[in-house]
């Protein structure tokens, strides 16, 4: 008997009925639904023992203590270390991203050699051989962005042994203040004892958002004993939170300081400094209230009121700083320091204090002498041919992105035949180097922070690695010690850990204690000899303004900083009024917009320093008249897809002027021409 059509269909029906009575349809359906929830790109939880270890944040110079939560061997979350005096349990937006930055796509995965524009992986041994060879026959220089770590000391000490004095810090208020103070005959590092002050006047320094020891400043503000006043051009985080915001044109805070000094002098206040009578006469004759009002935009009555309030306070403190943490000059700092001297609060509780320096690498110059090395001047000399450098090492810094006059910086780079980037991330500077030698993320290395700038106390913190490097990175100071050894230069230490142990010992701390998250804190202040002050510096505030609208760059931690681009985690917190699509917004108030003929959303070009910046207009009353505010941190050309090509870089249009009397390059008073794009 054959199987006819009907029989075959019946067979199929039987098969179908039978199949329904088996696990095939039901199990397959269930399994497919589970399979559809387990795509390979969905991250899987990794279980392990939960623990917390101490670390020190090195993403900015604030030196906050962190408490890193770990699961098994992996760090997962960064919180503020509640026992650390600079964080007291707090953490800034940048620090809170630190763990996830371990896996940022822009991380340099291993040592790279530039072979005619193409980066090729090499071994660390080869990297050491190449660098040793270059250094043995050429003149070296170094740029460092680590202003309070011992790694810079190792690099500076190594350069000295090579016979070079060309060690430069990236420009910062820390550097300008140190230089200014030493020019005045002062000793020690300037600090501000906010915790004990009953009246804090911040001239420009955005202390609660981006300046100095930010988290510690916020903690001091939270437990304030008196008034906080902020003077600056933009309603920053500080301006919005403090008791009063006094709008001042960008970079004119030094003039305001002298305007207040005028009233203090009129009240009979004085200071024991050489040349005081000359200074007094100069301020009283040149910085009259009317002049100061015209330069700063602050009404005469307000200047007088600030002076009266400062005098009435028991322990006033005047903080000086650039609105965006850099570009200030000796004039700004001299004016602010003079104000503190007139108030008699130098080395007084709640005032401006002077903190001692510690150095353990014998061959390294002191910080005070390093602060005299001006990076902009160095680059200018390289371009002009006055300075010939064969090897440039760049550590933890991104000068190609974060310096004004980018063309000059690029030209200087192109004139240096061999450049080495010790960078954790593939930033704009790293991609211009001949060797990229990845520095470990701070959670992967030993590192330290000695008395971060702005702190009112000596504070020394050390951190051990929290995780093994997730890429083929090597501690830069350890690598430098290896190179030094191969060149038969003795820095006196076998490893960077030994350097840190020596520093711990020098400050009188137990190394193991420091690693466990405890800090060495000291209230020791440095006594001063006779100070001096010349009117030549003070005259810089009288230089007439150029044409154009005042430009006020704004630094915000959540947008990154000069070494760390906007983090992938923080992309979502960028406001629509800051960046929309790829267009960056510049902020002007209604009066300025009307004067310039601008409307909300207009595309504009800011022209300055021979270059252009493109953005869209956002009208907001958080900016003072005749001023255009622009956030820093955009316009990256390297890094990764999270930042590349988003917005424009305001550093391009900052105009640099050389300050008379100090030779410092200053760019906190830039003006731009605004035209429709």
């Amino acid at each position, binding site marked *: 008997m054959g199987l006819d059509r*009907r*029989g*075959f269909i019946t067979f199929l029906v039987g098969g*179908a009925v*039978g199949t329904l*009575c088996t696990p095939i349809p039901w199990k397959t359906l269930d399994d497919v639904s*589970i399979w559809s929830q*387990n795509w390979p790109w969905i991250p899987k939880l990794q279980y392990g023992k939960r623990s917390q270890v101490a670390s020190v944040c090195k993403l900015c110079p604030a030196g906050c203590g962190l408490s890193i939560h770990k699961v098994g061997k992996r760090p997962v979350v960064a919180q503020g270390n509640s026992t650390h005096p600079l964080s007291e349990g707090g953490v800034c937006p940048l620090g809170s991203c630190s763990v996830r930055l371990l896996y940022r796509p822009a991380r340099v995965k291993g040592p790279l050699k530039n072979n005619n524009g193409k980066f090729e992986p090499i071994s660390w041994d080869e990297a050491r051989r190449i660098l040793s060879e270059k250094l043995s026959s050429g003149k070296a220089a170094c740029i460092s962005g680590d202003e309070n770590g011992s790694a810079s000391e190792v690099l500076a000490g190594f350069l000295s042994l090579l016979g070079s004095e060309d060690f430069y810090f990236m420009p910062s208020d820390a550097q300008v203040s140190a230089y200014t103070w030493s020019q005045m005959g002062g000793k020690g590092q300037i600090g501000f004892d906010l915790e004990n002050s009953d009246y804090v006047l911040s001239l420009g320094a955005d202390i609660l958002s981006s300046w100095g020891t930010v988290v510690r400043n916020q903690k001091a503000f939270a437990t304030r004993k008196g008034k906080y006043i902020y003077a600056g051009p933009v309603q920053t985080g500080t301006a919005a939170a403090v008791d009063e915001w006094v709008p001042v044109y960008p970079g004119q805070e030094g003039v305001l300081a002298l305007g207040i000094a005028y009233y203090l002098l009129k009240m009979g206040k004085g200071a024991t400094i050489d040349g005081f009578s000359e200074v007094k006469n100069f301020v009283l004759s040149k910085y009259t209230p009317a002049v100061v009002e015209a330069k700063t935009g602050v009404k005469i009555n307000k200047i007088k009121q600030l002076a009266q309030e400062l005098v009435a306070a028991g322990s006033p403190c005047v903080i000086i700083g650039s609105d965006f943490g850099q570009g200030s000059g000796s004039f700004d700092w001299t004016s602010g320091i003079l104000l503190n001297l007139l108030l008699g609060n130098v080395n007084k509780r709640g005032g401006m204090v002077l903190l001692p320096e510690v150095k353990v690498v014998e061959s390294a110059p002191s910080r005070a002498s390093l602060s005299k090395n001006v990076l902009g001047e160095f680059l200018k000399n390289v371009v002009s041919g006055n300075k010939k450098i064969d090897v440039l090492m760049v550590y933890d810094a991104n000068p190609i992105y974060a310096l004004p006059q980018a063309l000059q910086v690029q030209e200087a780079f192109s004139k240096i035949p061999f450049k080495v980037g010790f960078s954790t991330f593939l930033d704009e500077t790293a991609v211009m180097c001949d060797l990229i030698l990845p520095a470990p993320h701070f959670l992967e290395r030993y590192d330290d922070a000695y008395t971060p700038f702005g702190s009112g106390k000596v504070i020394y913190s050390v951190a051990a690695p929290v995780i093994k490097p997730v890429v083929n990175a090597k501690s830069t100071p350890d690598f430098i010690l290896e190179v030094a050894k191969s060149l038969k230069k003795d820095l006196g230490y076998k490893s960077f850990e030994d350097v840190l142990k020596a520093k711990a010992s020098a400050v009188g701390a137990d190394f193991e204690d420091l690693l466990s998250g405890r800090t060495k804190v000291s209230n020791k202040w440095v006594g001063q000899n006779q100070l001096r002050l010349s009117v030549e510096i003070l005259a810089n505030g009288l230089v007439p303004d150029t044409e154009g609208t005042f430009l006020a760059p704004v630094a915000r931690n959540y947008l990154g900083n000069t070494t760390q681009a906007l983090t992938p985690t923080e992309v979502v917190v960028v406001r629509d009024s800051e960046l929309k699509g790829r267009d960056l917004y510049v902020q002007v108030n209604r009066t300025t917009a009307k004067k310039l003929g601008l409307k909300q959303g207009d595309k504009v070009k800011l022209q300055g320093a021979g270059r252009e910046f493109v953005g869209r207009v956002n009208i907001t009353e958080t900016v003072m008249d005749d001023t255009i505010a622009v956030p820093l941190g955009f316009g990256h050309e390297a890094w990764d897809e999270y930042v590349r090509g988003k917005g424009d870089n305001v550093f391009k249009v900052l105009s640099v002027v050389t300050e008379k009397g100090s030779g410092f390059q200053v760019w906190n008073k830039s003006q731009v021409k605004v035209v429709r794009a």
Partner: protein
Amino acid sequence: MAKGKSCLVLPFLFGLVGALIVGWWLFPELLYSKKTQPIRFSHKVHVEDQGMSCDECHSYREDGSFAGIPTTEQCAECHSEVQGDDPAEKKFVEEYVEKGKEVPWLIYQKQPDNVFFSHIAHKGIKCTTCHPDVGHMDTPPVYYEDRISGYSKQTMKMWQCERCHARRGASNACYVCHK
């Protein structure tokens, strides 16, 4: 008519029986791949010969979470070097302890990440209620991996959790297991 009827019954039965055989015998054979553990770990050696108790390796942490399978570092407290002549131990020391790697153990009862299972909340229930009774085995049991879902054949399904909860009067609210 009768002849035609008998012709339809047989193909139906063939189809039915064939499908039942395929579904209940061939399908499971095809669905699950058989895997062995990366290291032939002998519970017997540890428990019977060395007299170790279960919680020396499978313990609760201070915070109440369950440590599960010990890490290589914990195993290396005893096995930092090869102690015996078992090739499995030699392999473990050379490939995992010396290289600082974790052993990719196959977990018979692995639950997805969206299931929050607390061991300490189930402390009163015998381990072998859910887990294979491996305590006295010299060779770990074969691991059957579902080729479609990727999970172990023994992984407990939600209905099993719910049934046990219902029988014991425990809540079956979603958030009890899905946070």
